[in-house]
């Protein structure tokens, strides 16, 4: 009885999640307009919101298990897109990265954003079987390979920032697939010891280049780092955030950091700094709370999932989303290095926006089918 399903679907639909996402995008669009008042980014963002909402609803009301059955096809299709983007003439090169595919009418879109979703699906499908014992080495290797294919292609663009956002997807999937806790603890300890050690050795042996060191130094001490060179983005972002104060800057909008082009990429990478300038500490914390509610709703959905693969899809999305939010805002606040990672739902960019809505739609689909056997 499609009508009954339909009715129940609307009742079980996660309205909070949907409105949270919609609200963040709407708020973000205002900030984009503020950051680039003379450009049409905010219009494009509204178009993206429309497309995203439709995609989200379409996927939400499709059985995610049927979609997961097709996961290998989507996955391979994603890899093809990543190959296509490297073809000269089709792929667009912006700032030295060949990461965009030209689309007549809209402009361009970034396949690596969509491939995140297909990769998460692929991983969920592979690890989604019911399990009785802990994760095996073989399973880990296969999981690693699933991740490696898109990562390798993205590194050819090269887009290190994007690659980093893939890591937590696998990490979360492995963590929730009964990987042994001692292995997790051991990895964590090793990381705590090895990362500083490797860095130290790298500095001593000059394998880590001066400019790369400088990027790290900027985080420790932005005021004394090279404010005009490598530390410029971080320093200007910190100034912009700081100028926001408690309730937002009192400067006229024509004299804002973004209007005067002191803050680079204000509508994409540094949209959060713009938000900080306009709305101050209060607005910034509200945005963080909104993300917290959104992610909590997703985790709740995962917990209620009727099977393992549904849970894994949602949590992979949670992992990717959280990591991106943390890195992007950290970048604006000068505590993470400047790598071009967009802020999900807020940064201008069709691919990121639509891909995030698709991911949320997937999570909704899982939830809607929590009572279905």
């Amino acid at each position, binding site marked *: 009885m499609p009508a009954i399903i339909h009715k129940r679907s609307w009742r079980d639909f996660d309205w909070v999640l949907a409105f949270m996402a919609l609200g963040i995008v709407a708020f973000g669009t205002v900030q984009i307009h503020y950051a680039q008042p003379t450009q049409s980014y905010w219009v494009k963002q509204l178009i993206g919101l429309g497309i995203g909402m439709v995609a989200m609803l379409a996927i939400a009301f499709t059985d995610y298990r049927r979609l997961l059955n097709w996961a290998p096809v989507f996955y391979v299709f994603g890899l093809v897109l990543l190959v296509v983007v490297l073809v000269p003439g089709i792929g667009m090169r912006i700032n030295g990265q060949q990461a965009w595919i030209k689309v007549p009418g809209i402009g361009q879109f970034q396949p690596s954003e969509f491939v995140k979703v297909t990769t998460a699906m692929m991983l969920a499908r592979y690890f989604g079987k019911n399990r009785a014992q802990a994760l095996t080495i073989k399973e880990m290797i296969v999981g690693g390979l699933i991740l490696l294919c898109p990562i390798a292609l993205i590194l050819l663009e090269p887009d290190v920032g994007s690659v980093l956002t893939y890591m937590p997807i696998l990490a979360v999937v492995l963590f929730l697939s*009964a990987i042994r806790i001692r292995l997790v603890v051991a990895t964590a300890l090793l990381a705590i010891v090895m990362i500083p050690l490797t860095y130290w050795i790298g500095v001593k042996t000059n394998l880590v280049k001066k400019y790369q060191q400088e990027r790290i130094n900027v985080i420790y001490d932005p005021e004394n780092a090279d404010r005009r060179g490598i530390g410029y983005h971080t320093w200007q972002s*910190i100034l912009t*955030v*700081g*100028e926001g104060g408690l309730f937002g800057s009192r400067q006229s909008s024509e004299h804002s950091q973004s*209007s005067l082009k002191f803050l680079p990429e204000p509508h994409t990478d540094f949209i959060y700094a713009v938000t900080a300038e306009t709305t101050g500490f209060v607005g*910034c914390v509200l945005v963080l709370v909104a993300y917290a509610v959104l992610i909590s709703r997703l*985790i709740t959905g995962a917990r209620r999932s009727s099977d393992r693969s549904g849970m894994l899809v949602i949590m992979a999305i949670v992992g990717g989303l959280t990591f991106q939010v*943390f890195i992007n805002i950290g970048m604006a606040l000068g505590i993470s290095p400047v790598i071009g990672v967009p802020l999900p739902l807020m940064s201008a960019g069709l691919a990121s926006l639509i891909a995030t809505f698709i991911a949320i739609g997937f999570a909704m689909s899982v939830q809607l089918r929590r009572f279905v056997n």
Partner: protein
Amino acid sequence: MKFEDTSQNLRARLRFIQVLVVMMLTVLSVRLYVLQVVRGDRYAEIAVNQRLRRLPIPAPRGVIFDRNGEPIVDSRPIYNVIMSREDVKDLQSLVEPLAEGLGIDKDILKERFDLVSSMPAFESIQVKQDATSNDIAWVEAHNLEFPELRIEQQPQRKYPADGMLAHVLGYVGEISPEQLKQSTFKDKGLKPGDIIGQSGIEQIYDDYLRGKDGYREVVVDSRGRIQDEIETVAPTPGRDLLTTIDLDLQKAAEEQLRTSVTQRGVIIAMDPNNGEILALASFPNFDPNLFSQRITTKEGKAEYAALLNDPETPLLNRAVQSRYPPGSTWKIPMSVAGLEQGAITLEHSNLVCGGGITIGNKFTRCMGNHGTPDVKTAITHSCDGYFYRLGLKMGIGGIMKMVDEFDINKRTGIDLPNEVISWTPSPDFKRRMQPRDPDWRDIDTVYSSFGQVYDVITPIALLRTIAGVSTGGNLYIPHLLKEVRAVGNPGTPDYKQPVGFQPLDPAKPNPKKLPIPEEIDQTVVQGMWQVVNAGGTGAGIRMAGFDIAGKTGTAQVVGLGKDTGKNKDHSWFVSYAPAFKPEIALVALIENSGFGNMHAAPAVRRVYDVYYRKTRHAEPPGAVQIAQK
């Protein structure tokens, strides 16, 4: 959760992830609090500062007028290429393209960039002064490559052609690094690139003339392009200056020097009744526009080097910075002092000429044999023998007393920079000058009494002395400032009162009144009158109806009258007129031209001609032959 039974602590693992998410967001919140609430004000201030720029609007410098209100020095608008430095990462990398594009000397540009590197970054740098229309087009065409460049208008000083009044006016120039270190300049808030008076009255009255720069406070974008204007403070123009110079007399004086035999010398005209300088010419001269307009170019630097190395020292203001033996003009103060001190008396002032004098085994001759003249006759015919004996009667003590009385051993106090002090005779001076023969002898007194060897004085000091005699003992401070003009209307808050001449040394009396008895003074004046009007050494310049009183002089260069080549004696004539009611005092010195009556006196006469036409509105009687080279 329907599948947890088959998993390892899945519920706990999910909760762990949830906690991790909250922790990450908390870290961000704490950081936000630090940046926005704790340090917000400081960052806001830095952010505001980086978009605010203060662009100076140069104040137009005051105009310099002559005493009749004729403008002498004015400013004309020029265009400069300016660079805002805040956006430039590597200044030195710009040297090459800018030097090429704007046709500037590379070394000069490099030096300039080095100098400003120690200054705060919000100050702009002047890249090129007086940009041509080609330069402006170049800057506009290269707006994308060099967005930090812009064009600004600035008033530039324009001095009269032919170097007229060069030594009086002086010139303006950019403040030097050395000057910037001195507190006198720093305390006035001057900064690199500021234009200040560097010589002449431009220097002395710089504080009046300079004015105060205004500024525009603008908002710039990250590339330094102006986006908005916040505040404009108009500059306060410098105050106009009325000098005591009379341009007609000045031109006449300069003309005399330009056409003189050696084209080197000094002519000064002064009102003896108040010290106002009517004309002051020193030759050779120079073009002050070199300093205000061309000095930063390669050609300008070469031109300046040539001036510095010129053996004829055109930069020197001979009127106040050169010393010459006064020759026989020295006999005027000698006569006054001799009478005052009682070495001779009004009733009996006769002394033997003797055609000269023998001191020890050395004979010092007189130019003629004048019998036993009285003081007037001795002046009229410039009898050296008379004054040898007068000097010996007064003694060196008497001569030193005279020097002191007439202030000859001090600066006159003229409002020009770097005036030198005259050298006057004293045993002490001889000890320093001739350490091998340090004792003062009678022969030294003889030399001191007729204006050679130990008497070496500036033309301005001589003129002041003679003008003092002409007014019965009033020694005024010679000066060039008539008035700093008032600004605004009386009664309004911006009104500034006119300022008259104030002695640079406030302790110096103006005038210094000498207690010369009138009969003594008149006797000497009559002697000087006879020089021109009763067949004396200056008889050639006599003007019927306009009594010139004067005295010729010949300053010994090698030996009096001995050299006829380029080391010929300097020719002096010092005078005032009308003799018994003086309006104007005039001194002329023509370097290496020989006897005073041949060159200096006719030059003086021609300046009197101009004065006569101007004040009497009639042709001067009795034109003189011109002694041309």
